[in-house]
């Protein structure tokens, strides 16, 4: 059994009881031991959380649709009709805020993983101009704007860099620099970030986030800062799509935003 087979077993059957082959592989593979240990901790922590209402169904539909689009899962089917997986059973154990936050964090971590493993090491071609390619607009609201955290609409950022990288040129052949970058499932990551975070971004214009005037002001201000940094990185990546350093900063900004959202949501949970 290989690591990927072991992961498939975990995905399909959960943590216990493991088949003999999986146990045998687990005993020999330190990477899978780590994975197993992490999952065990997660499940254990989840079981200790008090029960609460389920997250909205639209979130599962959205997550599943996104994963299908990226080729991470196959056999699309209606979420409500399929047999519940072990990980879906966990949803009853999670609080909605924790679940949503964890979902966003996992999506970001996965995106960051793919981002950093898809490019050859050391490739930084900031001087390469953006190719003239078909531009795929990111998902936006019908009015053409993406709502900002402060409530005021901000212009939709330019098409995500992965869209530029993955879209086929209409007339001009691909520049040599671009040909090194094979489109991967992570190419849609940046376009999906804003949508994913929109789902979990709390209403920061509410009367109180933390029950503290000063803390609320800090959270609002820093959420605004992070959104501005994300917009700036995306703008830069539109111009220099192969800039790995800018990609790192973008991924870092999304990670910080996820943590900030988690902080806000965590306070809401503790006030309940």
């Amino acid at each position, binding site marked *: 059994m290989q690591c990927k087979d072991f992961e498939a077993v975990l995905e399909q059957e959960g943590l216990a009881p493991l088949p003999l082959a999986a146990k045998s592989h687990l005993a020999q593979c330190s990477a899978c031991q780590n994975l197993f240990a992490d999952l065990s901790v997660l499940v254990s922590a989840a079981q200790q959380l008090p029960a609460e209402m389920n997250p909205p169904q639209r979130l599962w539909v959205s997550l599943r649709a996104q994963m299908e689009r990226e080729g991470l899962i196959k056999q699309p089917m209606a979420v409500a009709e399929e047999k519940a997986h072990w990980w879906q059973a966990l949803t009853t154990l999670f609080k909605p805020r924790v679940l949503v936050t964890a979902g966003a964090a996992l999506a970001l971590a996965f995106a960051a993983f793919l981002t950093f493993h898809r490019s050859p090491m050391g490739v930084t071609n900031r001087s390469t101009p953006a190719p003239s390619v078909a531009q795929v607009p990111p998902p936006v609201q019908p009015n053409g704007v993406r709502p900002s955290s402060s409530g005021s609409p901000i212009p939709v950022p330019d098409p995500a860099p992965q869209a530029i990288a993955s879209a086929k040129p209409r007339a001009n052949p691909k520049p040599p620099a671009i040909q090194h970058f094979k489109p991967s499932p992570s190419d849609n990551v940046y376009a999906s970030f804003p949508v994913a975070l929109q789902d979990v971004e709390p209403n920061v214009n509410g009367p109180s986030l*933390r*029950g503290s005037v000063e803390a609320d002001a800090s959270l609002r201000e*820093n959420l605004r800062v992070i959104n501005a940094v994300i917009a700036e990185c995306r703008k830069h990546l539109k111009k220099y799509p192969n800039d790995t350093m800018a990609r790192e900063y973008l991924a870092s900004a999304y990670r910080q935003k996820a943590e900030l959202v988690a902080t806000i949501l965590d306070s809401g949970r503790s006030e309940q």
Partner: protein
Amino acid sequence: MILNLKQNKRTVLSAVGTGILFSAAATALAAAPEQKEHHFEVKGRPTVVLQNIVDGRIEVKSSKSLEVVVISSSSPQKVAIDVEQVGDRIDISATGLVNSTQPHEVEANFTLTVPEQTELQLKTQTGLIYVEQVNGDMQLESVAGDVNLKEVSGYIIVKTTGGSLKCTQCTGKLDFASIGGGAQVLQSSLMKINLMTTTGNLLYDGEFVRTGIYTMKSTKGSVEVHFSPTDSLDVDARSLTGTVDNQAAEFLRPDAHGPHHSRNRGNSFFGTVGQGLAKVELSSYSGTIRILKRP
């Protein structure tokens, strides 16, 4: 008749005055912070967990005795404070009973005295977290409050949203993550540091331990390091749209390890001091990176 009127006037004035005095006294009493003190004996290396969900300052100092002393001061009728001992773990929590509309309206301040060898998990919204002379792993979280550490050692994790960190004479390992806060690490001897912020400024003016790894990253702010000529380190500095201001060029040998020679431009620099034993990575998106030699 006139005398009666004067007497009545005096009586009314006296009554009003007394009322005002009583009212003021009642207000003062109501506003006076409620103080409590708890003592817990511990056997070994205790863990203190303090979750302050309201505003307030946390101050931690150490003593030689195996005892944890918790002194709390909070807004009466507005904050609930729970303190509990489970073995060598002391759990403290402060939660708001009302929503505050004014700064410092719902507040709980803590002063802890702990054994020198203590592990800490402290969390507050605003207000300073101050820890002095404590040895042990610690995780400190704040939204808008600053964190000030002096003579602490262990694996130190600091997370803030807008608060800044000042770490003086620290040893061990340090992780700092913030969005709006900066970090100053002074006179410290840390094996490993990882400072990350979005808009804050970062400063490291301490010892570079051989084989240590020092990572400092600020998206919009500046990153500044001070080294001495006797240090041994490799410096890798990169700013995407900002600049690298190397004010110690005569002490930093560029291109010590070959492949980096082409990167030594205005916003990128690689250099070596001594044998290059410690690894120093400085990065910024649009901020300035400054490399200075200690006088």
